[in-house]
């Protein structure tokens, strides 16, 4: 029978109608998926027991993809086709690439050579399998997590909550949603990562304070983020965000590696292999120092040891850098350190005792560290997904978010008129009236911008569209109502309407860095083209399981009575068929040949099965009268 989970009182679902929902932490380096089962949020692992899925996708020539650890392991051999850190490119235009910092090892295609025939300004990465956007790469990661979740939960997902950094703008959020759509995953909500971490600790459930200030300190492998949140009656407001996109655990490894090379008198070597070895050893030492006060270190012929005190001193400048960012974020939100109620630690690098200690000293209170810092964001997202899927009796803990940056439009003179101010609770609809500038003007361009600055150039351009069909009249007579609508995910919809004549001209807006509908359709078509290959793979896996089952049945039968029921010749025939099936199981690439081998095995074993059945019947009837069976 199917496996059951415990529900909240009165919230049991009918068979086949389970409201399965997950939280997904779609990370730059690693991604995770979590779900609530029997009331507890837990991370869903892959069959090998790994919680983290490296956010790496490799495209192969035959159109197949490798996702996660496998892609990461092959990364160095196939750099141009292995895409990591796609999150940094999500929702970015070609013009943004230069400003992202650091060189990316990929070759970008020009806009006009888009594989789906439509023009767009989404950067396309050239791979052997065609041009790929960051959205498609992220979709592969989401697909893998979705499959893992459906296997773990034993059913189809109803939807997911996906987390995004608090500083993601509208285009980046839309791109994340597009990726989910490509992965055939329904998004209940996008949730800010720091908010998710606060939810995981249940800070939103504490009612002793009407208003809480929460600092979320997120030190990952390659990035550092600090967010100051204000929680007021279930509404999380982002007061300030800050950080360093090029500071993370890797820099701590570097510091140790440099010290090792110096101590081993190898600091001048140009041997990249030795440098790599030093980095690997550094990482091991760093992790070992979390639980030990002194760790021995080795490189080539040199041997030494590193104490925690030495390490702490070595990395003090790095920790200080993060605290400076914390200070700036507090200043941006006009708060003092002692006004912060909770400090939440996120990211694997916050396991380092020196980081916990210094952060604790800085905020004057011990940070929250009970939940695994790698998993805390996914767990918070899973809790929220459980509520949104309808598995909780009342709408307890329905989070409201705010828009991170103001939304507005361009007015005469290259200025920006703000329509919705930042930190407004969403969902929200706001309208503002505009008019024509010239006599007989029949069209107007609506240019939507996001940001806090006053001029167009300083803000981020989200979309532009033309409202046509304005009846000719004197300047200033037309009344054009522009409506901004932001849904619960922070996604924007803008309509413009000419009101005096009742003539309507509404337009739906898509951010200019998202994908056009035809592009998305093209991608969905592509995924259908691969459906056949996916189905073949599935069939093969099913047959392999069947083969295992057959082999197991044979082995256990033979173990129990082969000596009694079979002569040597018969045993040999059976064992020969058995090894043929084993061979097919290990070498076959298609389901049919495995199936044939199973059929063959069953045919060869037919006489044995019949003999065992006879034997069992005989045993059952022994000592009974024939009449007893005729009744």
């Amino acid at each position, binding site marked *: *029978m199917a496996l059951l989970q415990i529900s909240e009182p009165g919230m049991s679902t009918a*068979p086949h109608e389970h409201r399965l929902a997950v939280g997904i932490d779609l990370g730059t380096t690693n991604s995770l998926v979590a779900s609530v089962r029997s009331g507890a949020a837990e991370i*869903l692992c892959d069959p090998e027991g790994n919680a983290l899925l490296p956010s790496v996708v490799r495209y192969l020539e035959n159109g197949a993809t490798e996702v996660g650890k496998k892609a990461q392991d092959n990364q160095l051999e196939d750099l141009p086709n292995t895409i990591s850190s796609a999150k940094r490119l999500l929702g970015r235009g070609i013009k943004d690439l230069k400003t992202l910092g650091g060189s990316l090892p990929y070759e970008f295609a020009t806009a006009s050579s888009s594989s789906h025939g439509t023009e767009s300004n989404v950067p396309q990465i050239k791979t052997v399998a065609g041009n790929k956007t960051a959205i498609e790469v992220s979709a592969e990661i989401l697909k893998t997590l979705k499959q893992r979740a459906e296997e773990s939960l034993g059913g189809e997902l109803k939807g997911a909550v996906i987390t995004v950094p608090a500083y993601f703008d509208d285009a980046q959020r839309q791109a994340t949603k597009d990726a989910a759509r490509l992965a055939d995953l329904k998004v209940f909500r996008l949730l800010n990562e720091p908010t998710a971490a606060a939810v995981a600790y249940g800070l939103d459930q504490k009612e002793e304070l009407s208003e809480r200030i929460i600092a979320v300190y997120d030190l990952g492998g390659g990035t550092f983020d600090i967010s100051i949140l204000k929680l007021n009656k279930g509404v999380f407001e982002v007061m300030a965000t800050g950080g360093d996109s090029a500071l993370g655990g890797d820099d701590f490894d570097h510091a140790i590696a440099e010290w090792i090379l110096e101590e081993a008198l190898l600091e001048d070597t140009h041997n990249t292999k030795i440098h790599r070895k030093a980095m690997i050893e550094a990482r091991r030492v760093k992790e070992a120092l979390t639980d030990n006060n002194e760790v021995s270190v080795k490189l080539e012929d040199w041997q030494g040891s590193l104490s925690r005190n030495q390490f702490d001193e070595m990395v003090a400048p790095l920790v200080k850098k993060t605290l400076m960012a914390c200070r700036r974020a507090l200043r941006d939100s006009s708060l003092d350190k002692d006004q912060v109620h909770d400090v939440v630690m996120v990211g694997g690098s916050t396991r380092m005792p020196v980081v916990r200690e210094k952060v604790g000293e800085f905020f004057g209170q011990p940070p929250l560290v009970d939940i695994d810092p790698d998993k805390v964001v996914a767990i918070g997202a899973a809790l929220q997904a459980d509520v949104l899927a309808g598995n909780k009796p009342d709408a307890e803990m329905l989070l409201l978010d705010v828009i991170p940056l103001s939304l507005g439009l361009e007015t005469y003179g290259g200025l920006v008129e703000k329509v919705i101010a930042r930190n407004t609770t969403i969902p929200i609809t706001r309208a503002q009236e505009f008019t024509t500038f010239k006599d007989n003007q029949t069209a107007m361009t609506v240019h939507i911008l996001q940001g806090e600055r006053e001029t167009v150039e300083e803000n981020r351009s989200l979309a532009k569209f033309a409202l046509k069909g304005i009846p000719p009249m004197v300047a200033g007579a037309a009344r054009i109502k522009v409506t901004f609508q932001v849904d619960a995910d922070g996604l924007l919809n803008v309509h413009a309407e000419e009101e005096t004549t009742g003539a309507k001209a509404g337009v739906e807006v898509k951010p200019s860095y998202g994908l056009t509908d035809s592009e998305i359709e093209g991608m969905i078509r592509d995924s259908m083209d691969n459906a056949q290959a996916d189905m073949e793979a599935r069939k093969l896996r099913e047959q392999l399981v069947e083969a295992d089952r057959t082999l197991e049945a044979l082995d256990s039968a033979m173990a129990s009575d082969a000596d009694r029921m079979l002569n040597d010749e018969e045993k040999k025939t059976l064992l020969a068929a058995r090894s043929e099936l084993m061979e097919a199981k290990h070498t076959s690439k298609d389901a049919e040949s495995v199936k044939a081998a199973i059929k063959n095995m069953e045919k060869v074993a037919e006489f044995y099965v019949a003999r065992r059945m006879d034997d069992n019947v005989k045993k059952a009837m022994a000592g009974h009268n024939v009449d007893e069976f005729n009744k």
Partner: protein
Amino acid sequence: MAITLTDVAADRVNTFLANRGKGVGLRLGIKTHGCSGMAYVMEFADEIEETDEVFEDHGIKIIVDPKSLVYLDGTEMDFTKEGLNEGFKFTNPNESGACGCGESFTV
């Protein structure tokens, strides 16, 4: 007769109850639903009704309404893993058939 838990199942129920932070026990029941007659219901219990039958095993209160009890009496509840999936499994002596998916059963 009674309803019992295996050690593993008891351990998990205790963890889930502790995790939830409230609740008097575990409510089991059946619902007429599904493709093969009836389906199991398993919920956290916040209160016990007067008519409820209460069993105690491994220190856990198992609460069953009298209508469901006739179908559930003698059931043993286990917690198992099947591949990546994990959850509770019922061994019910009253059960005579289950649908292909195993989510519902007949007596």
